[in-house]
């Protein structure tokens, strides 16, 4: 009797292991391409930081622009940041906004990832979330000491995966931008927002943001 129970447990364990063996690669196949996009983007950030000083702002900006365009769905993020106001813009206004938003996104990366002091990205885990999106969870650490948790939300676009939101220590970049942009439009109008984005790019490129 005891032998039968043991056998049943063993069979159950084998079945579970077989099921896990089947599902794990399938799960990895579902999220793997999204994880690869994040890894590639983070590798580029580290590479740019390592030569950041010699590249200068313009050099970092130039290196990051094509990578950001490839890895981020900037147009979609731009649309989401305006929330309900996007639908009220003309095509020309949308184009101007996406252009300014793209420049600001890249300029912000170029300003923030300007020098290397032992930073590394770790702990890449991933899961499928609502609407078929994928969440990729990572940490950034400096010399082994964790600085922040950085999670990427990716959505499938035109056959490949692109980042649509970044959440650092629970703070959503998209939510922050939407809160600011809609507040500016609400109080001052769309031209004021556009001017603010363009002014920020100039400020970052001139290195006038001091710590």
């Amino acid at each position: 009797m005891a032998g039968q129970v043991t056998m049943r447990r063993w069979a159950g364990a084998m079945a579970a292991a077989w099921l896990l063996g089947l599902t794990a690669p399938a799960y990895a196949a579902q999220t793997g391409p999204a994880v690869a996009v994040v890894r590639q983007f983070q590798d580029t950030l580290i590479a740019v930081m390592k030569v950041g000083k010699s590249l200068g702002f313009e050099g970092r900006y130039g290196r990051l622009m094509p990578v950001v365009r490839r890895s981020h769905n900037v147009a979609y993020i731009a649309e989401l940041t305006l929330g309900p106001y996007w639908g009220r813009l003309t095509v020309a206004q949308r184009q101007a906004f996406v252009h300014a938003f793209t420049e600001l996104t890249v300029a912000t990366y170029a300003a923030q990832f300007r020098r290397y002091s032992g930073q590394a990205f770790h702990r890449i885990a991933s899961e499928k979330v609502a609407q078929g999106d994928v969440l990729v969870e990572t940490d950034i650490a400096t010399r082994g000491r964790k600085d922040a948790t950085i999670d990427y939300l990716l959505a499938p676009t035109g056959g490949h995966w692109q980042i649509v939101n970044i959440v650092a220590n629970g703070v959503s970049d998209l939510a922050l931008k939407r809160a600011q942009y809609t507040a500016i439009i609400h109080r001052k109008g769309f031209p004021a927002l556009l001017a603010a984005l363009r002014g920020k790019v100039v400020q970052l490129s001139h290195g006038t943001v001091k710590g």
Partner: protein
Amino acid sequence: MADDARYRARRFVGRVVGLGWFLFLGGCATSGGPDPLAAMNRRFYAFNSATDRLIMSPVAHVYKAAAPKPLRASLTNFFHNVAYPNVIVNDFLQGRLGQGMDDIGRFVLNSTVGVFGLFDVATPLGLKAHVEDAGLTLGRWGVGRGPYLVLPFVGPDTLRNTPSLVMGVFTNVLYYVGAPALTVPLTVFDVINARANASASLRYVRENAVDKYVFTRDAYLQHRDYLQDDGHLPLKAVEQLMLPPGPPPAPSHPVPLAPVAPRPRVAVTIPGRPVVPIRPPVPAG
């Protein structure tokens, strides 16, 4: 007899004040947006920014130049350690007995082996620092966070978190040292050191924000929610952002926008990039 009457009167007043405060919190928690006091908050935000620019930032700059990094790291550990009983008390108030015992171990270890907390010897031994305070405890007890506040000289806060300001004083070891000649300069150093440590965060705000007030407010509130949820990603809130937005609020000033038009899904060209659908439907499977 008279003492007994006074005691009863004090207890009654205490209960009334406590009840009133909780009712006020509850009322604020259900009063619409997170920032009903925006006009006052913006004034205090401007005041704090000016104070920082004129006084704290230059002082922190001198402090960073004068104190080597290892010294600053040790002072940070020290100030963190003397304030750590606040975390322990809130661990137990939240019913986190295991975490509370771990945090007692962390405090004892750092205070002894770590030489009055100058060295963090507990973290490498697996006793990681936790973040708990009165605001998070009240949140765990179900109290709403109340309106967002910007307090002069303090910065971002919420009404629910204001008891932390008082509790933080009474749970700090320095409060019980009883030697003002020592504790007053240490407290001043604590403030300067904290400001110096905040330089990177403040720079991050300056680099990222196009509206610093809104940026700071939303980042603070999101981060507090994240701490309230024990550092778990607010996935529902993140997913919510991906959904189609509702109608815009009425503008406070006439806004030069185009008339409302049907919302096309394919309309944007990024310079140097072919026209592609912004986000085509998710493929099946």
